């Protein structure tokens, strides 16, 4: 006896499958609570795996790059000396700035209020991470996240009770204003997933070169001014396009990061 098409369609198996999927999609309303509970249960193991993974990676990286280590060391020492000279110059400028501000009664610029957090995991499908602080610790959506070297990492996008999801700056949903350090060149930095950044909407006549350092701009008030973003790797300037764009390599390296700082905003 031939089984009709409708009998097949509405067979018990398909109905159960349909109901299960429906139930699964309805969990979207309880996603935050479900994820918070799961992260709480697996937090100790995830922290251990994250830190262990970083150490194992560093160990193998040292072995693979042992030949280049001497060259890297020399280059780093040279750069270090240049930066020390720069620090001395900037310290003098800072003192002068503070003196003038006091004299004009403007008030000193306050440093950020920072909160330390641990990274416990990365989303396998997008550029975002989970940190171990949430609503209970006063974390709110929109808090910028930086590394200990004041390199911009991302922004808090979702907050659960005990954990938060941070969108990295390379996440495709990220778009904010940035500028080239020591130049007037401004543009929009966009995330391109897989730790790639695009510096877009740069004026055609604006100066930009390979090796330029990008920092955050105060425009748009997404991030505080002056946080390090990355280095320009490649510039695209087509005659038919009204703007230039550049590929940027971010300064952060997620493989080396297990602690981050959140900038608390009022």
């Amino acid at each position: 006896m031939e089984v009709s098409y409708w009998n097949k369609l509405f067979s018990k198996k398909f109905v159960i499958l349909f109901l299960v999927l429906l139930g699964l999609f309805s969990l979207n309303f309880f996603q935050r609570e479900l994820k918070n509970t799961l992260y709480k249960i697996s937090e100790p193991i995830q922290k251990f795996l994250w830190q262990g993974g970083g150490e194992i990676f560093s160990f193998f990286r040292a072995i693979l790059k042992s030949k280049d280590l001497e060259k890297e060391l020399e280059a780093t020492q040279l750069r270090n000396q240049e930066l020390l000279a720069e620090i001395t110059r900037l310290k003098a400028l800072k003192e002068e700035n503070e003196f003038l501000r006091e004299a004009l009664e403007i008030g000193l610029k306050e440093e950020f209020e920072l909160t330390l957090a641990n990274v416990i995991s990365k989303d396998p499908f997008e550029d975002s991470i989970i940190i171990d602080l949430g609503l209970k610790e006063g974390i709110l959506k929109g808090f910028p996240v930086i590394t200990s070297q004041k390199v911009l990492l991302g922004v808090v996008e979702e907050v659960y009770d005990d954990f938060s999801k941070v969108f990295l700056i390379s996440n495709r949903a990220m778009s904010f204003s940035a500028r080239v350090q020591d130049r007037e060149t401004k543009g929009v930095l966009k995330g391109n997933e897989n730790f790639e950044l695009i510096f877009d909407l740069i004026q055609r006549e604006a100066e930009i070169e390979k090796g330029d350092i990008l920092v955050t701009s105060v425009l748009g008030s997404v991030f505080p001014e002056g946080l390090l973003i990355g280095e320009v790797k490649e510039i695209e300037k087509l005659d038919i396009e009204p703007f230039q764009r550049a590929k940027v390599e971010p300064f952060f390296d997620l493989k080396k990061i297990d602690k981050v700082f959140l900038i608390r905003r009022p």
Partner: protein
Amino acid sequence: MLKNFFLFFIFYILALLESSFLPHFTLIALFPDLIFIAIFFLIFLDSKSDRFLPVFFGGFLLDLYSGGIFGLKTFNLLLVATFLDFILAFIRKRNLFWLIFTFFTSFLFYESLLLLQKRF
């Protein structure tokens, strides 16, 4: 019952490794989707076993450890399992050539689904 509990535990470990350990070992920011690989081998090597529970376990854990619409990863894996079943129905011998062929075909199908969803 014990088999299902064991299966869920294995997928749980794979999900933890995928989210907290493997990100340190990326190649051009890519690393293997362990749960997809596990489900593929489960279906390829044992055609008579139940598909539903492993796919549901794996997809559910992927949904918990990633963002986006909850349930979408499970739905993707269900489609991949159905696609894989369809291909395997035409294969008589399960040898290395067919293993590689079906793996890459189903992987491309899986990645295409993810890419389409990212666009929309």
